[in-house]
Each structure stands twice: as structure tokens, then as C-alpha cells.
């Protein structure tokens, strides 16, 4: 999520494109090279949204490039349609539709599977285009005779020609495509996509329908590819069948990585490097086929040493701002009285109106491969209570906790939250109902700033499971900023709000972890070992934080540090060997000889 002001980047883009018209000829750049760069740059904008922003590496974008291109070219060469723009638009829609179909299959898996499936599906497109559909697509010959657009405004007629005339048309298209992408990146959806890239598990846990958003990104990328494919036909006056090849997808990936992913302009820069290097080495140096070898080596070196590409490299060169050492900053934070003085608390979802326990689990049982991790646990928590769950190693606490948050489906038993049966419900949906947790191992959005992290969680509460407000600015989400500020204040991180998460000290990350859960405005919050891995000083801070956030909230906490548990909890549930061993006030638990026995393993009687 970059800064949200858009006017400057938009103006600079326009200026750059106009200057290009005059500077490039002076630099003796062939208009055709510049035009190719624009088409590949547009193709890449969509891919960058998919890979750079959402983290989905597809090697199959050629499928949509080709689909959009051939639909547009077919419409134009068969006199079905006179308007080039209309044909491009229909091609784009066709590509997007193909994107929906492919996405539904490929997005069933992630990582290497996703990449392999996209490759395989793109190859299918190539084969389908090449033979079964060759009557429409011209097979290996492609479709010649794609016309250039003609624009009429009253008596003014602009017939787009070749060379720099075509540049003007393509630059206009690029400008529109880029402005749209900038808006998407700055929209709530754009923010959520970066969160999915950094940590899909947490994006889901704070209440976003991750699968839907991924599909949205996939379809948007397909649409961009389709549009660029159509323009390729217009630019060349001919739609080539090799638009569909694996090489096309590969070239796109390489250009994006060379230029720098998650920048929107990276693919354009990468294409410029690619094509000018080709022209230079091939024509200028007479190196013939070696240009691709040089590019391949450059690419491998960039992936090894400069993963963020050329733009990323330039950025880090210029952005050598002094960074406060984490320790120093943590000390400042501790001195500030943020933690003990409670500011306005972030809002909570109204707990569902219901008489009786907020959370009620009956007969919870989980069996893993014949072994039961949990057996027949009854558990209920009342509104406003602070409950602790403890037990020795292997007692089944983590399984039990995961069942309560619906991360694990129980083998038997049921869970009711606010009177509603949530057994087997999706985690995101449960969070939308007002139940979420903070994790034992930090689950943050690593490449975002602290403020952006909290915004992601708050967005889920503001917008619900899924919404496709691609063009709305994040600033326009009502109440979002207040919600984030209040959470920042509550976890005592206001002063650090605009730092990337990676620069925080561990204790601060831990508090942010709890903050993420809070920003989702739960009415019931589960805390999984909030003190795990903390230094004594950090422990003291965090215990204070827990005391602050408990006001008006229902909390369930699993924690090893029994001293803290006895200090905080109103009631304690003790698990042992997968069953509930005891339940009661801290004093009752301390007196309970079974509990002592379980913890001390035999020497308790002494």
C-alpha cells in the first residue's frame, strides 16, 4: 500500500508519456520499439497486480493475452465490428471471462501447484487456438489485416497511423490503464491483496474472503492481458499465434522481475530494458542470438541479489534514511505513558444479543489418526469474563483453541457463539461474527507498515467478508482512520505507526499481533500465549496491555506463565491429557491436588 495521494503520480505519468513522444525520437529510439514497450508494459500492469501485489506467480498469462488479442482481431478482421475500441473492450471481457474459469481451477492450490497449473492451462489454450479453433484464429498463420482505430469528433478525424501516431494512441491507452491500476492499488481491495501476499492465513483470520479476492486479482490481471493482447494486434496489424506461447508468459515474468515487481511501472521498465537490449545487442553489436543469454544472466543475477528489481534497487539507493535502532525506539516507547493511560478504546462489535454464555462448547472431541487430542470437553464463557486455559505440555490446549476459532473442525461436539452454531464455519466468517484470536507465533503482514497492518484488520470489520470496491479510495472508508488510531493508541505504538513491521522490536511486534486482533473489533477475543518469547520488561508491558483491553471485552487466554494467569484470570480451565481436569477461580485451582499432580508429575503429594 503506497501513499494514497494520486495526483502527483498521475501527472508524472502523463508528463512522462508526452515527453517520451519528443525525447525518444531524439534518442533515436525506433517508434516500434517504444510501442512494443507500451503494450508489454500494459500487459505487465495486470501481472504485477497479480504477482507483485497479491503474490501469485502465474506462468500462464499468455492464455489471456492471446484470448483477448484473438477475439479483438477476429471481430475486426471479419467485419463484425467497425470500432476498434469496442473490439478491444470485448476482447478484454472475453479474457476476463477466461480468467474466471482458469482462476476457479488454478486457485484451488497455491505456490508451486498454482504455477504449474497456470503453465499447463496456458498450454491448453495454445493447442486449442492452434488446431481445433484454427478456422477462426488462422492457426499457425495468425490473423492478418487488423485495422488501426479511427476517431471522429464532429468534423475532426484522427486516423491512427503507424510509428509515432500509433505511439500517441498506445500512450493514451497506457495512461488510462495505469490510472485505473493506481486506483486499484490504493483501494481497499488493493490493500487487502497486499495483505494476502504477505500472510493469507491472517488475512482470512481477520475476516476477509481470501479466495474471492484472489480470484478478483486473477480476473483483473486477465483483463489487462486481454486488452494488451488486442493492442498487440492493432499495433502490428496482425495477430500472431505466438502470443499464446509459454515464451510470452516467461518474457512477461522476466520483464516484471527485471523492472521490479509491486511497482506497476516495473514491467514497463523491464520491457524497455528487454527490447532495447535486444535491439542494441542484435543490431548494434552484431551479437545475434546472444541477447537473450545476456538477459537470462541479468535476470538470474537480479533474482539472486536484487529481488526487487531495478526500481527496487533505485529506491533503496535513494531511500537511505536513518533508521532508529529497534532497541532505542523501544526504550522511548516505554518511557511514554501510552500503555498505562487508556485512550479511547477501539469500538467493539455489539455482542449478539443473547441471554446465556457468549461461547458455549459441548462435547468437543478431536481425533487425529486414531489418537484423540481432545475428548468430550464442555466449556462455556460468559459475557465480560476473562478466562484462562492452562495445562501441561501435550494437554491439547492448542487443538482446543483452534477448534474454538474454527481453524480446526471438531470430530464431535458443537460450538455456539452468541447462541449461534458456528461448528465448522469458515474462519473469516466467524471473525465477521465477532470472534477472533491473536496467534502464539506472530502472524503479521510483513511488508506493510504498522498502520497498514491494523488497517487491514479494521477493513474487514468495516466492509465485511468481500466487496469489490476497486476504485474507491481507502480514505473514503468511513471511520477507518479513527479505528486504526485508537487501536494504535491502545497497544502503545502510535509513535511507530509508519514503520514497516520488519523494523519493530520483538515485543512491539507482539503487541501489534494483539492489535491486529483488536482492530477487527471482536466481541470475544482469544489470546494464544500472548507472552511467548518475551523478555521480562516486555512481559510487564504486555500484562498491562492485557489489563487495558479486557475492559468491556470477553477474553480467553492460553498462557504458560502461570503467575500471569493467576494475576489476570477470573476463572481458569485446566486441561490434561486432552480432557478437562478442573475449572474454577485461581484460588480453587491452586488448591486442587489433581492440578498439582498433573503439573508436577508425581511429586505433588509431598
Amino acid at each position: 500500500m503506497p501513499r494514497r495521494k494520486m495526483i502527483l503520480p498521475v501527472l508524472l505519468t502523463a508528463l512522462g508519456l508526452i515527453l517520451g513522444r519528443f525525447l525518444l525520437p531524439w534518442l533515436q529510439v525506433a517508434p516500434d520499439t517504444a510501442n512494443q514497450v507500451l503494450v508489454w508494459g500494459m500487459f505487465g500492469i495486470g501481472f504485477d497486480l497479480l504477482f507483485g501485489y497479491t503474490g501469485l506467480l502465474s506462468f500462464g498469462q499468455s492464455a489471456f493475452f492471446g484470448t483477448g488479442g484473438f477475439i479483438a482481431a477476429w471481430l475486426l478482421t471479419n467485419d463484425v465490428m467497425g470500432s476498434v475500441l469496442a473490439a478491444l473492450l470485448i476482447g478484454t471481457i472475453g479474457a476476463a471471462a477466461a480468467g474466471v474459469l482458469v482462476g476457479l481451477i488454478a486457485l484451488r492450490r497455491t505456490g508451486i501447484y498454482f504455477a504449474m497449473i497456470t503453465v499447463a492451462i496456458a498450454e491448453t489454450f495454445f493447442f486449442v487456438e492452434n488446431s481445433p479453433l484454427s478456422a477462426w484464429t488462422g492457426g499457425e498463420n495468425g490473423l492478418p489485416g487488423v485495422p488501426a482505430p479511427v476517431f471522429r469528433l464532429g468534423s475532426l478525424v484522427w486516423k491512427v497511423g503507424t510509428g509515432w501516431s500509433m505511439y500517441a494512441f498506445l500512450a493514451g491507452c497506457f495512461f488510462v490503464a495505469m490510472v485505473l491500476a493506481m486506483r486499484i492499488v490504493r483501494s481497499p481491495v488493493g490493500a487487502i491483496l497486499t495483505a494476502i501476499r504477505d500472510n493469507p492465513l491472517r488475512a482470512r483470520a481477520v475476516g476477509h474472503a481470501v479466495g474471492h479476492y484472489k480470484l478478483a486479482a486473477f480476473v483483473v490481471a486477465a483483463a489487462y492481458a486481454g486488452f494488451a493482447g488486442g493492442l498487440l494486434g492493432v499495433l502490428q496489424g496482425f495477430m500472431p499465434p505466438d502470443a499464446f506461447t509459454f515464451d510470452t508468459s516467461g518474457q512477461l515474468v522476466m520483464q516484471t522481475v527485471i523492472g521490479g515487481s509491486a511497482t506497476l511501472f516495473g514491467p514497463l521498465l523491464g520491457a524497455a530494458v528487454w527490447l532495447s537490449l535486444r535491439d542494441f545487442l542484435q543490431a548494434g553489436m552484431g551479437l545475434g542470438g546472444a541477447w537473450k543469454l545476456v538477459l537470462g544472466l541479468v535476470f538470474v543475477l537480479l533474482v539472486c541479489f536484487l529481488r526487487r528489481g531495478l526500481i527496487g534497487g533505485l529506491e533503496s539507493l535513494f531511500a537511505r534514511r536513518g533508521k532508529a535502532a529497534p532497541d532505542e525506539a523501544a526504550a522511548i516507547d516505554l518511557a511514554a505513558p501510552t500503555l498505562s493511560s487508556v485512550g479511547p478504546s477501539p469500538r467493539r462489535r455489539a455482542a449478539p444479543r443473547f441471554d446465556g454464555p457468549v461461547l458455549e462448547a459441548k462435547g468437543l472431541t478431536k481425533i487425529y489418526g486414531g489418537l484423540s487430542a481432545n475428548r468430550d470437553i464442555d466449556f462455556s464463557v460468559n459475557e465480560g469474563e476473562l478466562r484462562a486455559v492452562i495445562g501441561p505440555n501435550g494437554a491439547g490446549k492448542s487443538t482446543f483453541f483452534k477448534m474454538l476459532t474454527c481453524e480446526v473442525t471438531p470430530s464431535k461436539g458443537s460450538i455456539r457463539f452468541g447462541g449461534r452454531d458456528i461448528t465448522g464455519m469458515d474462519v473469516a466468517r466467524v471473525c465477521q461474527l465477532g470472534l477472533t484470536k491473536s496467534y502464539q507465533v506472530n502472524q503479521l503482514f510483513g511488508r506493510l507498515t504498522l498502520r497498514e497492518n491494523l488497517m487491514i484488520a479494521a477493513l474487514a470489520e468495516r466492509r465485511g467478508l468481500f466487496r469489490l470496491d476497486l476504485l474507491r479510495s481507502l480514505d473514503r472508508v468511513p471511520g477507518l482512520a479513527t479505528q486504526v488510531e485508537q487501536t494504535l493508541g491502545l497497544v502503545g505504538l502510535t509513535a511507530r505507526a509508519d514503520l514497516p513491521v520488519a523494523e519493530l522490536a520483538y515485543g512491539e511486534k507482539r503487541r501489534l499481533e494483539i492489535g491486529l486482533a483488536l482492530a477487527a473489533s471482536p466481541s470475544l477475543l482469544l489470546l494464544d500465549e500472548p507472552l511467548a518469547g518475551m523478555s521480562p520488561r516486555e512481559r510487564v508491558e504486555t500484562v498491562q496491555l492485557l489489563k487495558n483491553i479486557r475492559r468491556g471485552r470477553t477474553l480467553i487466554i492460553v498462557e504458560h506463565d502461570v503467575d500471569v494467569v493467576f494475576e489476570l484470570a477470573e476463572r481458569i480451565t485446566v486441561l490434561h491429557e486432552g480432557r478437562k481436569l478442573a475449572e474454577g477461580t485461581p484460588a480453587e485451582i491452586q488448591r486442587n491436588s489433581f492440578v498439582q499432580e498433573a503439573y508436577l508429575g508425581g511429586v505433588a503429594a509431598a
Partner: protein
Amino acid sequence: MTDLLTVERINSYYGDSHILFDVSLRVARNEVVALLGRNGAGKSTTLKTLIGAVRARTGRITFDGAEVQALPPYATAALGMQLVPEERRIFGSLNVEENLILAGLTAKGRWPIERIWGMFPRLKERRRSRGTDLSGGEQQMLAIARALIRDPKIVLLDEPFEGLAPIIVRDLVGVCRTLAEAGQTIIVVEQNIQAAMTLADRAYVLNNGHIVEEFSAATMRAQPEVLHRHLGV
């Protein structure tokens, strides 16, 4: 008597989470030392740091005269240290015998397999069974056997009795006791304090990553309240 293992002020992290704070301890030859502490105190991390599976950021570990804090696990293992991990980590696709052969491949002085069979007759009966088909107790026996076959100078046992039926715990404690009596140096991490203390000569208590107490087995038997203070609820 020189110490076999000396640990001086090590600090270990998981990612950026600080787990061990200036932990120091020593183990003499032929000694059995217990590491006690509540969940999450840093006991397993201590063992993993010793073998090199977790790298200590600062501090020094001297094992049998060599500094090992910067060595990868295979090199530390080659010097004669063996970890029996908490999760046992039996290779499920290999059978019992293959698990043992694999473990012995690079060992300098290997136990003859008959000696393992003698110690764990149950494993001999199941020598052709795949790791996935073993019961929890059998897996634990195999995990210990896999360490012993390398004739290690020191064995690190991480919760060897966890989750096992009492009768199997009794058997395993017996095996460990035989080993100890034969002079095997052991560090044992165990929640079952009674079992741990029947083996150990000495114990350290860890709390939140710090060593907070060190005492002998005799002290523990004389003053059980020491344990209560650190480990009870």
C-alpha cells in the same frame, strides 16, 4: 574431573523472538543432568542450541574440548552428541532396522545392532515394521536406540516419557537408568519430574529462558518445596 560439556552465556532466538537469555550450564562426564521448568521455559530450545539445530547468537558451547556453537548439527553429531527430539521424528517410510542403519551410517564407533536388540527386544520383534506403524512407545524406543547406535558421548533426551502409558514409562526409565549406571552422559528434559529425578544427579531449573536454580538430586529429595516454587501452579 573435567566437564564434557560447558555452556557459557548462550542467547538463542526463534526468528526475532528471544528465547534463551545468558544460559550457562555444565555437564561432567558420566553425569545425568535434568533440565526442568514449565512449558515454554526454553528447555527444548536449549537442547536444540546444543546440537546446532538452533544457532546461538552469542555465547560459547564447548563439547569434549571443541567449540561447537557455530557447527551445523551433522558436525556436532559427528563429535558424539545426539539429540532424541521431543517429537521423536522417526522416519515413517523406513522400517525399524533401516532407521537404525541410517543413524549408524556416519558414526565412528557403532554399536552392534545385537546390542540394541538386547536392550529393546520389542524393537527386534518389529524390525521389519515401518516407522509409521509403530506405537508411541515403540517410536520412543526407536528414537532412543537411533541415538545410542552412534555410541554418543552425550545423549540429549527431550521429554522421552511424554504421552506414554505408565508401564512403558517404567520400562524406558529402566533402560535410561541402566545406561546411566553404565556411565552414559545424559541431559534429560522432562515434565514427569519424578521420572527425571530418579535418573538425574543434578538439575537446572529454567524459567522464561533464564536458569533460575541449580540443585542436586539429594537437595531435591530433602526439600521438595524447591520444586513446587518453580514448577507448581
